[in-house]
C-alpha cells in the first residue's frame, strides 16, 4: 500500500503490467524519454527499454493505425493520446478499425489495446484542452469506455483494461490527477493524500470492467456520475444534506445497468451528471435507459447536470463547468418534483 495520486497510480499500472507481459508496448507523443506531458509514463523507457516505451510522431491517426497493426501481430499496445481533444485525427482508425475488427473478422483478429487519454476541464485549458468526448465512443459498438474517478480505481481499472481482450478507451479526468476536485474552484486544492482512495496497493490487482460502484448509499434519489463529477456530486450532496445514493459508473460501455436499476427502483428519482456538452451526451443515454426501465418507479423526470452546448470557453471556465450550484439546483429539482 502506497499513497499515490492518480498519475502515480496510472504510472504504476503501466509498470506492473509491462513487467508481467512482454507484449505490452507503450507509445504516444512525448511518452518516451520524457515520460509524457502529465508524467503518466515517467521512467518506463528507462526501465523497459526504448522498444517497449517510445515517442511517437505527432499523428494520432498514425499512433492508432500502427497500434492496430501491432495488435494484429500479437502485441498489446497501451497508447496515449496527449489530450482527448486531439483524438479526432485518430477517429477513423478507432471507430472503423479498432472497434470493428473482431466483428468483421468473426473473431480472427482481435484488438486488445488500451487508448488512454486525459479529458475534461477545470484547468483553464481553453477549448482544446478541456473536452469530454466520451459520448462519441459510447455510440460505437465494439469499444469499451472506462473512466476512473480516483487513484485506486485508476490503477485497478487500467490493469483490467490492459488484460481485457477488447479495445478500451480509457479517459482520465485530468482535473483530478493531483487531487479530488469538489467543484469549488474558489477553495484551496486538496491533495489525494487526504483521501482514502489514494491508498493504492503495490503490485497487481484489478477493478473489474463493467461494474459500477455505489459510492454513497441513500434513499432520496440516485445520482449517476463518473470521473471528476463523482466528487462534485458527492460534495454537493453533503453540502446540501441530501440523502442521495451516488453511483460511480467507472465503465460507461458496457454499462452496469443492474446496479443502476436497482438503485433507481429504490429511490424513485434520478439525476445524471456529466461534464460534457449537454446535447447528445452520455447522460442522455443514461436518462433514456433509466426512464425505459424504471418508468413506473419514477416520481420525477430524470434530470441532467451537464456542461453547456458551447465550446469550453477559456475565461468562462467556471460558468461552463457543472459546479456546486448547478448540482444543487438539479438535486432540488429532482427531489421537489
Amino acid at each position: 500500500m502506497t499513497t499515490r495520486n492518480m498519475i502515480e497510480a496510472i504510472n504504476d499500472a503501466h509498470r506492473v503490467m509491462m513487467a508481467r507481459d512482454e507484449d505490452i508496448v507503450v507509445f504516444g507523443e512525448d511518452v518516451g524519454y520524457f515520460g509524457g506531458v502529465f508524467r503518466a509514463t515517467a521512467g518506463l523507457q528507462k526501465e523497459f527499454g526504448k522498444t517497449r516505451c517510445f515517442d511517437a510522431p505527432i499523428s494520432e491517426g498514425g499512433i492508432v493505425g500502427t497500434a492496430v497493426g501491432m495488435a494484429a501481430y500479437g502485441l498489446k499496445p497501451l497508447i496515449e493520446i496527449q489530450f482527448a481533444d486531439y483524438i479526432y485525427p485518430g477517429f477513423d482508425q478507432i471507430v472503423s478499425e479498432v472497434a470493428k475488427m473482431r466483428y468483421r473478422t468473426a473473431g480472427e483478429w482481435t484488438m486488445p489495446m488500451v487508448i488512454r487519454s486525459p479529458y475534461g476541464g477545470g484547468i483553464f485549458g481553453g477549448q482544446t484542452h478541456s473536452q469530454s468526448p466520451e459520448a462519441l465512443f459510447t455510440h460505437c459498438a465494439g469499444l469499451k469506455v472506462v473512466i476512473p474517478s480516483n487513484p485506486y480505481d485508476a490503477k485497478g481499472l487500467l490493469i483490467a483494461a490492459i488484460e481485457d481482450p477488447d479495445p478500451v478507451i480509457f479517459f482520465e479526468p485530468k482535473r483530478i490527477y493531483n487531487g479530488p476536485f469538489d467543484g469549488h474552484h474558489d477553495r484551496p486544492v486538496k491533495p489525494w493524500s487526504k483521501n482514502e482512495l489514494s491508498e493504492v496497493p503495490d503490485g497487481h490487482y484489478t477493478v473489474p470492467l463493467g461494474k459500477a460502484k455505489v459510492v454513497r448509499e441513500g434513499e432520496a434519489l440516485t445520482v449517476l456520475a463518473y470521473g471528476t463529477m463523482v466528487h462534485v456530486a458527492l460534495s454537493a450532496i453533503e453540502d446540501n444534506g441530501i440523502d442521495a445514493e451516488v453511483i460511480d459508473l467507472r465503465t460507461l460501455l458496457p454499462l452496469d445497468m443492474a446496479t443502476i436499476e436497482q438503485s433507481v427502483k429504490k429511490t424513485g428519482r434520478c439525476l445524471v451528471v456529466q461534464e460534457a456538452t449537454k446535447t447528445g451526451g452520455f447522460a442522455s443515454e443514461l436518462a433514456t435507459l433509466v426512464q425505459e426501465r424504471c418508468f413506473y418507479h419514477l416520481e420525477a423526470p430524470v434530470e441532467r447536470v451537464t456542461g453547456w452546448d458551447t465550446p469550453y470557453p477559456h475565461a468562462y471556465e467556471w460558468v461552463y463547468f457543472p459546479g456546486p450550484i448547478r448540482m444543487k439546483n438539479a438535486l432540488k429539482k429532482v427531489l421537489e418534483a
Partner: protein
Amino acid sequence: MSDKPDIRANRPALALHVPEPPFRPGDTPDFSSIKIQAAGEVPRPDVAADAAETHPLTTQLVRVLDDNGHAVGPWNPKLDPDTLRKMLKDMKTVRVFDDRMYRAQRQGKTSFYMKCTGEEAIAVSAATAMDPEDMHFPTYRQQGLLVARGYPLVTMMCQIYSNKGDPLQGRQLPIMYSDKKHGFFSISGNLGTQYPQAVGWAMASAIKGDSRIAMGWIGDGATAEGDFHSAMTFAAVYQAPVILAVVNNQWAISSFSGIAGAEQATFAARAVGYGIAGLRVDGNDALAVYAAVKWASERARTNNGPTTIEFFTYRAEGHSTSDDPTGYRAKGEAEEWPLGDPIARLKAHLVALGEWDEERDAALDKEIDSSVRGAQKEAESQGILPQQGFDNIPSMFEDVYSETPWHLAEQRDQALDEAREFLGHEPK
C-alpha cells in the same frame, strides 16, 4: 490596412488548375506520350544501398520483359520455369475467378464484386516473391495474393455469397476477405487504413526480433488519405521492415491519377521526401514485380528499412459492379495501354524460353475453367446471398465483444423474436 492599394490591380489574375485526364468518352486514346523505359534499362542498386541511391528510379520504370518475351537486364530474377508456370496459372486463375464472380453478381447471386483485370501480375508476383509467413495488408484488388498463396477458391466464393461457408459469417461486403493463416489481413471498407497498420505490424515484428516482414497496399487514389502519410512517416522514423506498395492503375472510380497528384510527381517519388527507398515498376511485367518485391523484402529483412514501390498499371475494367466506366473514360483505353496484358506477357516469356506452348496453354485454361466452375458449384451448394440473412441470427450479435454484454443479449433475443414472427417459424 494596406498602404499600397494599387498593388493588386497590376497583378495577374490567379487561376485554379483542375487536372483533366487526356481522354474522355468520345476521344480516341493515344498513350504514345507516356515515356516507357526499355526493359533492362534501369539499374539495380544493392539492397543495402542508401535510400538516396534508389531515388532516381522513382521516376523511371523497372522492366524485365521486353517486347519479345525475353527477360533482360539487372532486375531479371531468373526464375525457374516451374515458378513461372505457377505464376501464370495463378494469374489466369484470378482472371477466370473474377469473370465468374462478376457474372454471379450480375445474376443476382450476390450484391457486389470487384475485378482486378490487368493487374493480376502485381499481387501474384508479390506473393511469390515474399515468404508465406510475411503479412499482407491488402486492398480489395489483391485477390491474387490469396490465389497465389493457395487459399481455397471455394472459401473466397463463400465469402462473396455471404453463405454458410463464409468464414466471416456474412458480416462483410463481398471480397472483403480476411485470413490470418494465409497472411492476409482483413480488408477494410475505409480506404487507406491498412497502410499504417502494415507499418505497425512490421514495427511489432522488429520489436520482437522476429524475421517476418509486412507489405501494405494502397491504390493511387487512396494515397491522398492522411493514413498514407502516417504510414510513410512511421515507416521512415522507425525504419520499419515493411514494403509499401502503391498500385497505380490510373483510375480511382471516375477520377484519374492526376486528381491524386500524378501530374506533378510519380507516386514512387513520394518516397524521396521521407528518405525511404523507392522503386517504380512496370506492374504488367510479372518478373519486374517479382524482382522489385524481392529486392525490397531483402532490404527490409536485413534491417535496411522500408521501401515504397509504385506499380504502374491500368484498371482494365470498371471500378466495381456498381460502376460503368464508359461514363467517364474513353473506350479502348485498356487495349491501347502501352504496357500490355500481364498474362499474355508472362505467357510469351515462357514460350520464348521454350517452356510453354499453345497446347499446354489451352489445356491450362481448360483446367482452370473447370476448377473455378467446380469451386463455384461447391460454393453455391452452401447458398447464395439472397438465401441468407435469417439463419444463425445469434451469430450476428457475437464478436462485437469477446463476451456478449447484457444489452446485446437483449437485442439478440428481440431479433430472434422478430425473425420468428417474420418467418412464421423458429429461425435456424
